C-alpha cells in the first residue's frame, strides 16, 4: 500500500458527482499533480484529503491508517490555499508560528523553526511585516512557509501560483520544486495549468468530470495520452487516422502527406503552421532555426514518425 492511498473516493453534491471513484496511490516524497479544467473534481479531492469536505464514498489512508476518522485539525497536513489565506492581523512570523503554537511547541523552539523556514523561502528579513505589506509572490512564500514549518506528512497546494503573473509564476515553479526536493515532503498540487503540472510533478493525474483519465509521469502522459481528452488537455494535438500526433513531431519533407499552408504565425522560438491536407487541417510547429520556411499558400509535404 502506498504512503497516501485514495480508494474509490467519491463526492456527490445532490445528483452531481464532483468526484467519481478516484483511486490513487501516492508514494512517500512524491510530487503528484491533480490536473484538469475547472469543475473536474480536483479541488474537491484536495478538500477531502484536507478534511474540509466529507466524501460520499471511498476511503483515504495515510500510512495504512484511516485518515477520514481524524479531525481536520488533527491531520497535520500543510496546506497552501489559492488565496493564501494568511492571517491579516498577524505578522509574518506570527503567521508561520501559529501552527507550531497549536502543536504546543515551546517558544524557543518555535522561534528557531520559524526563522529556519523563513530562511528556506527567502523571507528571513520580513518576519515583522504584515501580510498587507508584502507582494503577491512574498505572500505566497509566507503561505508556503506556514504550511512547511509544521513538518507536515503531506503538503497540499491548491492552485498556489494562479494569482501570480506569468514571469513570477515561472520563477516560483523552479523555487517550489527546489524547496520540495530539499525538504522531501510528499506533495499534492491542484492546478489547471498543464505546463505547471508537467514542470513540477513526478506524476500527474489528469482529471475530467470527477474521474482520473490518466495517471502517469508527465512525459509519458504527453507522449502516450490514454484518451483524446488527455491528449488535448496536455497540449496541441492533431488527430490523424484516430491517432494523436503532436504538432512538433510533424516535419516538412520532400514526400509524404500533401497539403497547402493556410496560415503561418511567427512565435519567436518557433513557427506555428496550419496546413490543409486530405486528413483535415493539421497544426505543425517547427523550431525557428533561422532558415527560410514555407510561406502561406505554399504546397508542402508532411511526414512524421508513427507515435
Amino acid at each position, binding site marked *: 500500500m502506498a504512503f497516501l492511498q485514495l480508494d474509490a473516493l467519491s463526492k456527490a453534491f445532490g445528483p452531481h458527482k464532483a468526484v467519481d471513484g478516484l483511486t490513487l496511490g501516492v508514494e512517500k516524497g512524491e510530487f503528484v499533480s491533480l490536473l484538469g479544467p475547472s469543475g473536474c473534481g480536483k479541488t474537491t479531492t484536495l478538500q477531502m484529503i484536507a478534511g474540509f469536505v466529507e466524501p460520499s464514498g471511498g476511503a483515504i489512508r495515510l500510512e495504512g491508517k484511516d485518515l477520514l476518522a481524524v479531525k481536520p485539525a488533527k491531520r497535520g*497536513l500543510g496546506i497552501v490555499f489559492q488565496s493564501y489565506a494568511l492571517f491579516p492581523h498577524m505578522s509574518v512570523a506570527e503567521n508561520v508560528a501559529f501552527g507550531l503554537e497549536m502543536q504546543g511547541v515551546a517558544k524557543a523552539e518555535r522561534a528557531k523553526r520559524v526563522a529556519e523556514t523563513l530562511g528556506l523561502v527567502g523571507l528571513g528579513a520580513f518576519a515583522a511585516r504584515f501580510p498587507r505589506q508584502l507582494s503577491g509572490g512574498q505572500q505566497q512564500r509566507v503561505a508556503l512557509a506556514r504550511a512547511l514549518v509544521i513538518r507536515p506528512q503531506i503538503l497540499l497546494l491548491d492552485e498556489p501560483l494562479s494569482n501570480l503573473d506569468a514571469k513570477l509564476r515561472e520563477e516560483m515553479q523552479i523555487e517550489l520544486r527546489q524547496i520540495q526536493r530539499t525538504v522531501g515532503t510528499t506533495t499534492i498540487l491542484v492546478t489547471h495549468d498543464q505546463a505547471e503540472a508537467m514542470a513540477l510533478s513526478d506524476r500527474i493525474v489528469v482529471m475530467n468530470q470527477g474521474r482520473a483519465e490518466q495517471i502517469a509521469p508527465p512525459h509519458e502522459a504527453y507522449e502516450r495520452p490514454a484518451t483524446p481528452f488527455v491528449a488535448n488537455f496536455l497540449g496541441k494535438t492533431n488527430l490523424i487516422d484516430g491517432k494523436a500526433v503532436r504538432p512538433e513531431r510533424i516535419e516538412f519533407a520532400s514526400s509524404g502527406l500533401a497539403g497547402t499552408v493556410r496560415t503561418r504565425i511567427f512565435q519567436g522560438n518557433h513557427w506555428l503552421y496550419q496546413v490543409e491536407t486530405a486528413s483535415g487541417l493539421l497544426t505543425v510547429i517547427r523550431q525557428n532555426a533561422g532558415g527560410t520556411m514555407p510561406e502561406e499558400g505554399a504546397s508542402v509535404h508532411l511526414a512524421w514518425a508513427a507515435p
Partner: protein
Amino acid sequence: MKAMPYLLVLPALVLFAAVVIVPLAMTVALSFHDWGQYKGIEPVFILKNWREVLEDSYYYEVFGRTFRIAALVTLLSAVFGAPEAYILNRMKSPWRGFFLLVILGPLLISVVARTLGWALLFGGNSGLVNKALMSAGLISAPIPFMFTETGMVVALAHVLMPYMVLSVWAALQRLDPQIENAAVALGAGPLTVLRRIVLPQAMPGILAGAVIVFSLAASAFATPAIIGGRRLKVASTLAYDEFLNTLNWPLGATVAVILLVVLATLVIVANRLVERRYAQVFG
C-alpha cells in the same frame, strides 16, 4: 477645468452653509444668551447657562445617566450583535439574505412603533417580558422596566442592534473564506479559530459599530422619552423640555451643545484610535 469640481459641489455647499452651518452657529450663540420667565431671550453674551449646567448636580446626573445608558447599550449590542453577525455570515443563501432582511428591516420601521412595542411588552409588572423571564426561571420577582433605565437600555439595544450587526457583518464579509480552514489545518480547534482568527478580524467592525451605537444611544430621543416618561430624563429629553415646555431655549441650547461636543470628540478620538491601531494591518 480646475474650477469644475468646485462648481459641481457649489449647490450642495450653499445649501449646507445656509441650513447647517448658520443654524449650528446660531445655536452655539444661543447658549450664551440670557433668558427670563417674562423677558424671554436676550441676545447678550453671558456664561449663565454654562455655569448653571456645569455647577448643578442635577445636570451631572442627567448626563451621567445618558452616557451610562449609552455605554450599556453599546456593550449589549456588541456582546449579542457580533455573534449574530458571525452566524449570519456563515448562513447559506437564500437564508442569509432573508435573515439579514429580518434583522436589518426593523432599522427602517419607525422608531416610535418599535418603542411602542417595548412599552407593550414591558407593560407594568404583569408584562409579557416579566412573565417570560419568570417562567424561564431567570428571575423570581418581576423587574420594573417601564420608567426605568433598565427598560431604556433594553429598548435602545433593540433599536440600535441592527447597526452593530451591519457593521460587524461588513467586516466579516472581507474575511477570506479559506482563512478559518487554514487555521483548522494548522491544528486550531473551533474556539481557538474564533478567538485568534475571527475575533481579531471582526474587531474593527465591532469598534466601528460601537462608535455608531454609542453616539446614537447617547443622543436618542423618542425611545427614552416614551420608556422613561416625563421624570426619568436623559440629555436629549431634557433639552426637548427646555425648548418646548419650559421655553428656556438658551439653557436647552447649552445642553445640546454639550451633547454635540462630547459626542463629536468621542467619535473623532475613537475613529483616530481605531485607524491608528489598524492602519498597518488592514490598510
